[in-house]
């Protein structure tokens, strides 16, 4: 997990296209410039980055269902809850599940657990668009492949 680069997912351990569920893992870094401001002397992962983590897990899952032909972009967050504080070195388990596959959009439910306890969850809506460039498509495919190798 590199907060400054919005690289929120370290490893993908499972993608089940029958149940449409993805499981992933990340470790919060010990140090980050984000923690210098959030908060001085009391480092916490910002809630928006917890949402981003769930969005990335969901987005990767959606891309698997459409063979990485388009890119899902976060369009809505509902019932977003940050249930506990998350600090440096925390091991996170992320789960994303597709609730609905619409035409040009998808809705997921995602959660993050730390030490077995749910620390965040949300329902997320994505609009699904063509990739703006083939380069980005290939970059994302390669990044996801690396995450799966590490899983």
């Amino acid at each position, binding site marked *: 997990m590199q907060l400054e680069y919005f690289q929120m997912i370290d490893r993908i351990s499972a993608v089940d296209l029958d149940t449409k569920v993805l499981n992933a893992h990340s470790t919060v870094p010990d140090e980050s410039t984000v923690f210098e401001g959030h908060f001085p002397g009391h480092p916490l992962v910002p809630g928006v980055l917890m949402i981003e983590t769930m969005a990335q897990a969901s987005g990767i899952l959606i891309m698997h269902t459409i063979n990485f032909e388009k890119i899902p972009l976060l369009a*809505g967050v509902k019932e977003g809850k940050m249930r506990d504080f998350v600090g440096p070195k925390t091991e996170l388990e992320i789960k994303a599940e597709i609730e609905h596959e*619409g*035409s040009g959009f998808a809705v997921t439910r995602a959660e993050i657990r730390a030490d077995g306890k749910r620390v965040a969850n949300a329902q997320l*809506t994505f609009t699904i668009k063509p990739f703006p460039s083939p380069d980005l498509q290939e970059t994302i495919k390669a990044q996801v492949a690396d995450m799966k190798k590490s899983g």
Partner: protein
Amino acid sequence: MSTFDKVADIISETSEISREEITPESHTIDDLGIDSLDFLDIVFAIDKEFGIKIPLETWTQEVNDGKASTAEYFVMKNLCGKIDELVTAKA
């Protein structure tokens, strides 16, 4: 409850539009001012309610290509007619 009543209820529950404003002649975009994000929420709710998948991408493409007017798909009475067709086709 008619398709129109179900869809109108969904729209009023999903957006800030009062139920009384919504008529069969209402254009969901031009008259009711539903934006693209609210429309996704509404389509999600309609898909779930009726057990269908509204072909929103196809409709949007047809409008963008000039093959259809927005009214054909997005005026309430026409939208409800399309929903009924999708429900019948699924049965």
